[in-house]
């Protein structure tokens, strides 16, 4: 082969690195060819473009977020399995130190930003407009932009694995380690630009859903009538808009340091790396609440539905959500008690961190009281919710231990911490998102996911979880530090590490069961013909599954909390069936290709800056500006669905009153 090509292959395609890269290259190539072939063979290109890529429908955007989140859960999970395989036995050389660094970096970053975030956005999109009786979000076009920014940022981030090299300075990427001098490759740039792009999308989503919830509720729905999932969205969005700007600045300044030679966080010329650490965690801690609050919202819906009771302590649930979102902003320094800020500062942050436990405790007790004496149905969403309670309780307790500043000097950056945050992130966020996915799946797709396979997945995942992470608390006490790629045989850590790795494999089996479950249910899952498969309480269950694209033919009037349940109790459900004479033309946003193109332009810009190709970077940005200007001058971005079309749709759904 020509030597120019070999140089390129070594430098950018990393073909020297061995079979893992070759395997991925081949896999990516095959999958891409497969997708292109399938789309062409089944004549689906037009469908893909019309129905999905240019859509502004919140339900479809939600589904796209969900698919991406599951794919990213797979990628992050594969990373995790590689890490645990490496740690299974002492002195292992399955992965080199460099590869271990890269993999824990991509694992952490993907799990938080490209798995947990899109998962909550999936549920926001699918659920919130339906729960509040709206036909879409406040800014559907912006919503599509948010999605495509996330999508292309995830592409950019994942591209690093096969083109140029993965980031390797951990998901927090502290300088000076992440500065050019210590970390020259493009990997760290990938991290910075991908996070910047997806972060812009997240801020837009936060704004969008706040505006939606404040301005577009059905008539009569007071704030204190809103379902708790919607409330949790409010809380999470408030935190998003207050926290994400700090991330944007932290990584923007680091990007300037790396690409334009400034000195914010270098040791040289007066830079201050601790400023990055502060800015990062001003976002980073609230971020964990951003992802867990929606999970709390899911649990509240699930518990009430499957215990067939009103949620216990609704107002205290709302108050605790809002309180958590405020307190979460005043605890960030607990991530670096060891910085040396002094006893007074550490005391403040230690006490604030412990305070978060109070509203969280209130919520846990409310869920328990709701279940108490309820007629509980052990469906999949309920199983995950019940499993969440003890898991989160242990995670919370170890969190309080970490929040005790003097004690943290012992646990800091040990496996005790790793066990703690996986317990709250998996037990809190992942369990919650899976519960939400099972719960709203029929609303999205019109069929239920198979119970039996789901139970296998549940037990494998849960048992695997404890087998994997409980030993890590002990390992932490025994002195094992995080981010070690291997360890000597005489530390007494061998057995516990092996057990932990076995646990990780068991969890992987659980995930495989979920995949099988989804594939099986597409064909054999129980169809949902009523729109209300769980005997639900809130407005989304008054609609057919899946909902027509305008959601509500006639916007309902809401008079109480849990309206749908109340109407069912009183035998008045027919009131929500639209009457032909009440139907008016429905105002809807038009599809647009521009959000997708804008995401693409951001991708080009990001790619350019990653490789210091400034001309390409600015070319991409010019594309972004062009999209913005075109939008500013656009006037016909909406249309009306004529009455007869709505009447026909409702009639075929058998819903005309």
């Amino acid at each position, binding site marked *: 082969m020509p030597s120019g090509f070999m140089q390129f292959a070594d430098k950018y395609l990393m073909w020297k690195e061995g079979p893992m890269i070759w395997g991925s290259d081949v896999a990516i190539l095959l999958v891409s060819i497969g997708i292109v072939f399938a789309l062409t063979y089944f004549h689906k290109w037009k469908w893909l473009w019309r129905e999905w890529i240019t859509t502004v429908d919140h339900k479809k955007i939600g589904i796209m977020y969900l698919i991406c989140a599951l794919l990213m859960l797979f990628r992050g999970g594969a990373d995790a399995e590689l890490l645990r395989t490496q740690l299974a036995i002492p002195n292992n050389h399955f992965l080199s130190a460099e590869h271990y660094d890269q993999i824990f970096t991509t694992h952490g970053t993907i799990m938080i930003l490209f798995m947990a975030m899109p998962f909550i956005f999936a549920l926001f999109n699918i659920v919130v407009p339906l729960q509040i009786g709206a036909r879409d979000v406040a800014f559907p076009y912006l919503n599509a932009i948010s999605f495509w920014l996330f999508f292309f940022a995830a592409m950019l981030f994942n591209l690093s694995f096969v083109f140029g090299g993965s980031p390797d300075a951990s998901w927090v990427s502290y300088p000076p380690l992440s500065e050019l001098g210590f970390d020259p490759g493009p990997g760290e740039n990938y991290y910075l630009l991908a996070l910047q792009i997806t972060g812009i999308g997240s801020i837009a989503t*936060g704004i969008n859903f706040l*505006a939606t919830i404040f*301005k577009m509720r059905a008539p009569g729905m007071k704030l204190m009538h809103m379902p708790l999932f919607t409330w949790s969205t409010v809380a999470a969005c408030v935190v998003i808009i207050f926290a994400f*700007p700090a991330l944007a600045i932290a990584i923007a300044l680091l990007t300037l340091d790396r690409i334009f030679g400034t000195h*914010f966080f270098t040791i040289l010329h007066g*830079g201050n790396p601790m*400023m990055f650490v502060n800015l990062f965690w001003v976002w980073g801690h609230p971020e964990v609440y951003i992802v867990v609050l929606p999970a709390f919202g899911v649990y509240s819906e699930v518990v009430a539905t499957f215990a067939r009771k009103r949620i216990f302590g609704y107002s205290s649930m709302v108050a605790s959500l809002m309180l958590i979102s405020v307190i979460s902003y005043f605890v960030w320094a607990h991530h670096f008690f060891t910085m040396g800020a002094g006893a007074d500062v550490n005391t403040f942050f230690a006490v604030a961190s412990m305070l978060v436990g109070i509203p969280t405790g209130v919520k846990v007790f409310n869920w328990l009281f709701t279940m108490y004496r309820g007629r509980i149905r052990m469906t999949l969403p309920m199983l995950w919710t019940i499993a969440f309670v003890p898991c989160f309780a242990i995670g919370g307790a170890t969190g309080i231990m970490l929040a005790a500043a003097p004690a943290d000097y012992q646990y800091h950056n040990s496996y005790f911490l790793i066990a703690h945050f996986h317990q709250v992130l998996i037990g809190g966020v992942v369990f919650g998102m899976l519960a939400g996915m099972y719960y709203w799946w029929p609303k999205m797709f019109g069929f239920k996911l198979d119970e039996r396979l789901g139970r296998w997945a549940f037990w494998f995942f849960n048992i695997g979880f404890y087998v994997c992470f409980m030993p890590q608390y002990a390992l932490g006490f025994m002195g094992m530090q995080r981010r070690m790629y291997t360890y000597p045989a005489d530390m007494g850590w061998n057995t516990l590490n092996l057990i932990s790795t076995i646990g990780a494999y068991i969890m992987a089996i659980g995930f495989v069961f979920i995949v099988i479950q989804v594939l099986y249910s597409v064909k054999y899952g129980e169809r949902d013909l009523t729109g209300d498969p769980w005997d639900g309480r809130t407005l989304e269950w008054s609609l057919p599954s899946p909902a027509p694209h305008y959601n509500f033919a006639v916007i309902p009037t809401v008079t109480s909390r849990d309206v749908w349940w109340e109407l069912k109790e009183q035998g008045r459900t027919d009131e929500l069936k639209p009457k032909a004479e009440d139907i008016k033309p429905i*105002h809807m946003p038009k599809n647009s290709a521009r959000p997708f193109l804008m995401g693409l332009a951001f991708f080009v810009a990001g790619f350019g800056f990653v490789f210091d190709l400034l001309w390409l970077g600015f070319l991409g940005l010019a594309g972004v500006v062009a999209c913005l200007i075109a939008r500013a001058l656009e006037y016909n971005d909406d249309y009306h669905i004529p009455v007869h079309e709505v009447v026909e749709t409702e009639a075929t759904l058998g819903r005309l009153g």
Partner: protein
Amino acid sequence: MMAMPDAMYGGHSGVTSSDKPLEYRDPNQSVKILGFWLFLATDMLLFGCLFATYLVVRTHTDGGPTARSIFDIPGFTLETFFLLTSSFTGGLSTLAMRNGNKKALVSWLAVTIALGLAFIGLEVHEFIGDVAAGATWERSAFLSAFFTLVGTHGSHVTVGLVWMFLTLLQVAKRGITPITARKVFVVNLYWHFLDVVWVFIFTVVYLSGRVM
């Protein structure tokens, strides 16, 4: 038979009330104003973080140029004068919009743009002078933070200028409608916001830089 369509895909069944200012009357437009306020909150935090960074490193000059040595009093005073005045004329354009006076609206927007351009021109001039004197952002953490904070504001102003110009074109072409009224209102909100940020830059960066 043509029934009245719902005014927006939201829950509000499109009551347009005429006791509100024009830009708020159509619920499709007023929700955008709310969205814009939320955006401004995030933008304010963006600047907040830049200010915090600046304050942390403002004395980290590494033996290079200091605030006192590079800040030029007549220069930044004139910049302030132009930007504050432009905010006032921007306000006059909103007023003209509410009075339905298209000609005054277009003229005040044009005056605002001209003043904004003068501001940007001065700022670019200031930066070029600094760089020529060796005060580049690669020189020290202080200069990195200074150029980034003030430059971020400057690029916001530039975006605002383009946006205001586009708004002007639309008003000229389409007159004062609920949509263009909202656009005029929002671009002016943005403009005032940048003015407020500048007041902080003026005091925290320039004034304190000279006296402290």
